[in-house]
């Protein structure tokens, strides 16, 4: 499912125009992006939570050439699956 399919699904389920549904979906993900950029956590009960994790820099190697390279410290968003979603996905049927 991509963003336009999500927008269509929302419009159909809630009886919204596509334009309105698009505004809703864009606003939600823009706000989630802003929160992460400002290092704020996101907690959506039943779905999951996001937080930005910091990773220290380290000395790595190019596995092909063996060349030593410095990997700088970095920050990456991390998603932890919520309990309900975890259980629904894991139900092997």
């Amino acid at each position, binding site marked *: 499912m991509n963003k336009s399919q999500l927008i269509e699904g929302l419009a159909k389920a809630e009886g919204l125009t596509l334009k309105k549904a698009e505004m809703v979906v864009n606003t939600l993900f823009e706000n989630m992006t802003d929160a992460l950029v400002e*290092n704020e956590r996101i*907690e959506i009960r039943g*779905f999951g939570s996001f937080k930005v994790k*910091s990773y220290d820099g380290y000395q790595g190697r190019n596995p092909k050439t063996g060349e030593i390279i410095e990997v700088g410290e*970095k920050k990456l968003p991390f998603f932890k699956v919520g309990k309900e979603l975890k259980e629904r*996905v894991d*139900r092997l049927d």
Partner: protein
Amino acid sequence: MPLTKAALVQVLFEKEILSKADAARAVDTVFGLIKQALASEEDVLISGFGKWTVKDKRERRGRNPQTGQDLTINARRVVTFKASGVLRRLISEYTTKHPRMAK
């Protein structure tokens, strides 16, 4: 304070996109649709934000780290998330501009 569904509902209301009641339903529906897709093994891609993928994990041998006992970890299905390049860039650029946030 983490960003919650209530805060997202408030934003939709303040931006005059939907009434409070409709915004609450819409937020639930959005996450509900994403969950439904993942539960039926469908990946979800939100361009500019990231992608959730359903992965099948094989059964493997593991060990209880507390007791050291050997055990078998059953096959399972999990969800992983990969942030889009845009989101990664925004997060690292902000860190560079606000060095105090770096750690």
